[in-house]
């Protein structure tokens, strides 16, 4: 006999109260990553051994800056979700697990802030 209420069953959110949200976000960012990552790879190849001025000139095109920021957002969000699963699978000590999960969120957010700031700075010609 199930101990779950009818409402809980119909919401289908499970004990973690998030249901398939994590899975869904993983797939949404995975799909977004395909064109965005191809763009980043192309961008890096196009600037192999380039002078700084060339990179800045490319990023000063609004579309380039916007797509690069979108790429960093999508990639790093996907990265945060993936690393979270790895931590949950292998780190079992509660305090250490919590510390790792927090560090993961701060790592992804920090990398995004640093990259987005750099891209915007170049885009605005500062």
């Amino acid at each position, binding site marked *: 006999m199930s101990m779950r209420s009818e409402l809980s069953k119909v919401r289908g959110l499970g004990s973690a109260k998030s249901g398939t949200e994590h899975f869904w976000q993983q797939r949404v960012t*995975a799909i977004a990553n395909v064109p965005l990552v191809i763009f980043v790879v192309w961008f890096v*190849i196009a600037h192999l051994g380039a002078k700084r001025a060339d990179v800045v000139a490319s990023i000063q095109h609004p579309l380039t800056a916007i797509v690069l920021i979108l790429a*960093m957002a999508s*990639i790093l969000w996907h990265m945060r979700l*993936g690393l979270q699963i790895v931590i949950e699978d292998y780190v079992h000590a509660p305090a250490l697990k919590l510390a790792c999960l927090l560090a993961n969120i701060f790592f992804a957010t920090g990398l995004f802030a*640093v990259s987005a700031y750099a891209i915007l700075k170049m885009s605005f010609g500062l």
Partner: protein
Amino acid sequence: MSDSKPKARPLSPHLQIYRPMLSTAMSIFHRITGVALALGMIGLAWWFTAASVSDAYFGFVQGFFYHWFGRLILFGFTWALIHHMLGGFRHFIWDTGRGFELKTVEWLVRANLFGSILLTILIWVIGYGVRA
């Protein structure tokens, strides 16, 4: 709730019990490449940051990645990226409920492995072509 002491229950068999298979290896590779890519993202953020700082600092970072060791990191990053992306396509196919027949799975994991190697080499050929 009479006895809360953990009992010595039988555990379900884990990785070491099963015969190693290419599909197992590809599943593990997908995870390892994902973690490696996370480390690689530090490099990408570093590159963007350097480009926003100064000519001298950007020259230093470009030089770091041009060095044989930097190129080795970039080559590994390229392969991990392509392998993880092709592995993602495999998961997209599986998400639709298709491709679970053993023959198809074997074909998919082989396509994943060989495709990632071929595409990585192709990207580097293009890279050297652009650079030259």
